[in-house]
């Protein structure tokens, strides 16, 4: 029996790598807007998949494999997080 799962993928630049977009938002929008208590902003990419699979593990694997095969992220510069939500 297959079920439909929601699989979320969050892709960010590696912690040691820069994020010019986040830096700009932080410097030009947030700090200039007076939110001094915000210490940094990082941007990323968020993808939400609806996947038919036997179980959560399988759903995660399908998405993990396709992200690698299609180079949706590049492990050299990006980190990725995969979250599976129930069917």
């Amino acid at each position, binding site marked *: 029996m297959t079920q439909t799962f929601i699989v979320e993928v969050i892709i960010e630049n590696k912690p*040691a*790598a*820069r*994020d*010019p977009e986040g830096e700009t938002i932080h410097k030009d929008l947030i700090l200039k807007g007076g939110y001094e208590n915000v210490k940094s902003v990082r941007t990323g990419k968020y993808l939400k998949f609806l996947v038919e699979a036997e179980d959560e593990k399988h759903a995660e694997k399908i998405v993990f494999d396709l992200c690698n095969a299609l180079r949706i992220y*590049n492990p050299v*510069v990006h980190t990725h997080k995969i979250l599976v939500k129930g069917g």
Partner: protein
Amino acid sequence: MVKNKPIPVKVNLTPKEIRMVRKLLGREPTYVEWGMFDIMWSEHCSYKSSKPILKKLPTSSPKVLVGPGYDSGIVDVGDGMAVAFKVESHNHPSAIEPYNGAATGIGGIVRDILATGARPILLIDPLRFGKLETGRTKWLFRYVVKGIGDYGNCIGVPTVAGEVEFDESFETNCLVNVACYGLVRKDKIFLARFDKPGDILVLIGGATGRDGIHGVTFASKTISEESEEDRPAVQIGDPFTKKLLIEAVLEVLETGYVDGVKDLGGGGLTCTTSEMAAKGGTGVEIILDNLHVREEGMNPYELMLSESQERMLLAVNPEGLSKVLGVLEKYEIPYSIIGKVTDSGKLIVKFKDEIVASIPPKYLAEAPTIKRKAKKPLNLEKLWRIKKPKEPKNFSEILYKLVSTPNIACKEWVYQQYDHEVGVRTILKPGDSDAAVLRIIETGKAIAVKADCNSRHSYLDPFNGGAGALAEASRNVVCVGAEPLAYTDCCNFGNPEKPEVFWQFKRGVEGLAYMSRKLRIPCVGGNVSFYNEDSESKIAVKPSLVVVILGLIENLDGLVTAAHDCSKGGLAIALALMAIKGKLGVKVDLSKIPTSKPIRMDELLFSESHSRIILTTSTKENAKQILKIANKKGAPANLVGKVTDDDNFTLTFDGRKIVECSVTQMERFWKETIPKALEVR
């Protein structure tokens, strides 16, 4: 005997070099000093293998203002103006992260031009990839082009020319070369050196982070599986900050208070400070605690070796410091005052009130050269004696096939992603002609620019490949009416520790030097990228000695309506491309083509012999005059055919039809190849 203590950090120096470092300093270096020697004596920073060979290139002419040894070559283009230009490779970063690798390659070269005081006015990108068949190559090709387009377009510098070659030897190691040209008034040229003790050092631009530490030692190794996992973080391009940096630097230099300027690239702060002090015969004192940083807790080793992007170093006259800082603040460019130029003759680095390094700059900047062994590859003789294939029958079919091969096919998919007109100087764009032409608005003259290399020629015959690259590049600028003034070269080779690879390099440069002397076109700079080799397959890239040329057009009129040189695919392809671009037919009698001896039909059509140009002109009288001029100069020339107002591409030999193709059909094949391979449109 006292044993040496183990070095506290990993260094890539040879045992002999390690002994030399100890002997030079007369003591055990600190770990920071080990790092500094490691990076400065790497192949990438020191050119230790290539320097003795590169000396063979002629480097001067009355027009050369600054030759090799500085970041960019600078050439006089008349009326008080000069052009600074430079080429660099960004092969290794692009092979693992094509988008940011290519983008930051442009970032680096633009900073080099900026450091001469010139405003960057154009970019050229010679690219080489594996066969356009594998997923990996398509991924690299797509994102390298996108990286160049996005970055170049954002900083407002047009990408006006380039070349793309596909060959299986570039499968893991794609070659991404980037060239930038800038315009500067002759009396406003800056040199990257510290001349005046007492000048204040201001580090401007991006904050220093841990990114790219040991990027250059990485570029001095081959790409391995290990580097997949354990490689340094690739730089992320930041074009909008770069645009601000360009404007801020040009304005800061206008103040008259800056005595020296250089960008921070490979080798980071270590390379910039040691080279500038070595050139000026001065010393430097740096206080690392003052650097603006992106990460907490960085140690002096990391601070001295970091290759964070978008940074430049200024040596500022103390009297004008507040004025200079005012300009930086206006553009919101971060900066820090990191030290001063001294007359100590030493590069002294302090951190937390402690001296962590103290080295005479020239020890770092002048690495010992290595005499590499060169040996002709064994298989070459065999390749030279390869049997000619049987002469084919249907030449029309072959022509259709040739225009569809990726190496000859239309590269519109590439250059349509680049803004080639921003800056309003561009007269001839990519695809228009053999070279790009840009106006020097300030003087009413124009410059012609182009990059060329034929890696297959170089593979089979490095000497003639190197010579041919310059011959082709100069032909290309001549075809748009320019006189070639100078060139810079980008050498892309495999592992120089292999005698066969080093032989290719040596012969390539010798060929280039030969052509350079014969044509009297000097070399004003260059870049060498070694270790372009897959560590698993042991396949090195085909030797690729890319020539990037500068030509000057004094007068934009002429007798000629169109000119095209014969290169890849020879005469037949040159004619076909002229027909396709003009959307007109061609009728040529091949028996009229000047040949040195009778040759086979396939050779007549497709030989890639150098130094041949096809010209068209509007009247018979003009044609006669052209022949007269050619005759006077001793250049073989003949009237071979005419342009027709139809769709027929017809080549005959003494009345016998050899090729009969439709121009629109050829155009369709020529245009569809690359979009088809990439599954776009």
